[in-house]
């Protein structure tokens, strides 16, 4: 289990992190969301040891992270970087070796991964001649070549076309199901909702919500009462909630009130097509949390 505990970090006068903490279990995919400048990248760089926190700790399976433990992590930084003039396979292999693989193991792992990511034909090309999407795949291969024990990926999906997004999602799910904790940050909330078991929402250097996606939808944000009524005369729901009209249908969203009473008045006003609770989407929870 990867535990991030109460990280604090200042850059001069600016407080970047003000007590950030979350935990990711083995085999769990954790989505890290937040606005630009909220502290996602700083947190991930501290987890990777690229930056030092002013206080707080990162633990893996109960012990504070050491340099050797971090070498078994796979990391994809927000700012992508590769040796532009180095050949694809050579580069992936080099990183495998830096992470401690032997020569033959690194070569095999690199070959297998490039095959899987559809880059086998480009293995002897210099990185600089690849398209951006393919460079991103090489970046991913570099993060995965040593079969990392933990994956930390900063915005891995940004700049990818939908097909590449699906391919990357598959690879991540695969690693995750083999028991690796996966942390990734993203702005694509639908994607996070679809892929992640749990999420953490960060705003202004603080965690404003974190937990399993289902639980959050139940507990965080507003759960609204939603009614769809057909043929009602306009104005019947004044004062009850927010009404939108769609043809002869009216959709009413109610934040609070006596639901039975509202149902009765709706039935008097017209034909009730839908009556039920609507859980907030992750996007709604996010907007509310960071507002």
């Amino acid at each position, binding site marked *: 289990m990867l535990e991030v505990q109460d990280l604090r970090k200042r850059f001069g006068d600016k407080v970047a992190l003000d007590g950030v903490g979350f935990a990711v279990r083995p085999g769990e995919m954790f989505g890290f969301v937040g606005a630009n400048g909220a502290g996602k990248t700083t947190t991930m760089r501290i987890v*990777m040891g690229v930056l030092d926190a002013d206080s707080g700790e990162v633990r893996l399976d109960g012990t504070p992270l050491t340099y050797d433990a971090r*070498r078994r992590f796979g990391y994809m930084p927000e700012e992508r*970087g590769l040796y532009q003039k180095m050949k694809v396979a050579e580069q992936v292999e080099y990183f495998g070796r830096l992470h401690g693989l032997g020569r033959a193991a690194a070569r095999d792992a690199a070959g297998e991964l490039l095959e899987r990511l559809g880059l086998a034909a480009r293995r002897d090309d210099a990185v600089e001649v690849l398209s951006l999407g393919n460079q991103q795949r090489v970046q991913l291969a570099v993060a995965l070549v040593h079969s990392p024990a933990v994956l930390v990926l900063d915005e891995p999906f940004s700049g990818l076309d939908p097909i590449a997004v699906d391919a990357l999602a598959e690879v991540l799910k695969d690693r995750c199901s083999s028991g690796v904790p996966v942390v990734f940050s993203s702005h694509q909330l639908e994607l996070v909702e679809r892929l992640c078991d749990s999420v953490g929402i960060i705003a202004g250097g603080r965690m404003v919500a974190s937990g399993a996606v289902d639980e959050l939808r139940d507990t965080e944000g507003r759960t609204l009462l939603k009614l769809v009524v057909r043929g009602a005369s306009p104005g019947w729901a004044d004062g009850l909630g927010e009404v939108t009209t769609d043809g002869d249908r009216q959709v009413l969203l109610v934040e609070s009130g006596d639901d039975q009473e509202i149902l009765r008045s709706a039935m008097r006003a017209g034909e009730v097509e839908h009556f039920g609770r609507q859980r907030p989407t992750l996007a709604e929870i996010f907007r509310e949390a960071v507002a």
Partner: protein
Amino acid sequence: MNGLWLVADREIRTRIRTRGFLISLGLSALLVVALAFVPKLLGGKDAYEVAVVGAVPVAAQDVTYTKYPDEAAARKAVSGGKADAALIDDQKVVSEGELDQRLGLLLESAHREGKIKASGLVITPLQVETGATAQYQSVRTGIATLLVMVLFFLLIYSSMYVAMGVVEEKGSRIVEILLAAVRPWQLLGGKIVGLGLLGLLNLAVVIGGGLIAASATGLAADFPPGMGGIVISTVVWFVLGYAFFSALAAAFGSLVSRQEEVNSVLTPMTMLMTLTYLVAYFAAVEPEGTLARILSVVPPFSSMVMPVRTAAADVPIVEIVLSAGLMVVAVVAVLFAGARVYNRAVVRTGARVKLAEVLR
């Protein structure tokens, strides 16, 4: 340690394949070989052919006399290139273009000697005694001057490569994933070691090329005893100087994120190197001067002044040991300070990092 060697290995593999490296290697070898031929080209001739009309003068060293029946024939031999000059009736010298200075002196002294002999006077030539070392002085100065250029060129260009490599990794942000796999000192150390080995390879090519060319041209015969010592001292001082300047280059380089900024951020270092070069150049000409003697023990000047001084003159072993000891201390200090700056600055991309901020 393994990480360091992996990094060094990559540096060597990538750099050795670049055209820039191969060109500089070839050029430096070519330069040294060419220089070995220069004395031969500039040294003039060492045997002269003189056409003589009338009485044959007293024999002179390196001069062969050939008799011609008359002045016209002698002049023809000179203009046809058969003779370097013509001596007419022991009175007049004719030459094509300017008369070779040495030949002029030789003919003049032969002429005088003939006249003196004829008058019955006997002159015993002056006896010249020289010290054992003095005889090699000009050769040693020549070697020292060459050494200054070679050391300066190799030090500055190897250090520049270190700085450029640091900026390449910082600017492309690849340093973040590198630091997730290796420690900063391994990354920095690997780069310095790898590029340093390439610098040594270049130095070996220059020295080897120079020595081979020198024996091919016969220049090696004039070499002073103890050439082996000069070569060893050059290599050792190159290593020390390179360690010092490359650590500086890495520290300064890590402050910026773009290649265009490398030159300006390295200015203090290149100025220090240029100053060292100038001092070493004077030391080559005047190895026993006070300035040369003092600066040959002060780091980092000693990294170039001392090898040059040892090539140009005999330096007491005490001074060499003292100088090397001080340089090692300076190298260790700069490596520590450089690594500290590098550690703190290399992940701070964007605007140029202020040195004072990261040294605190």
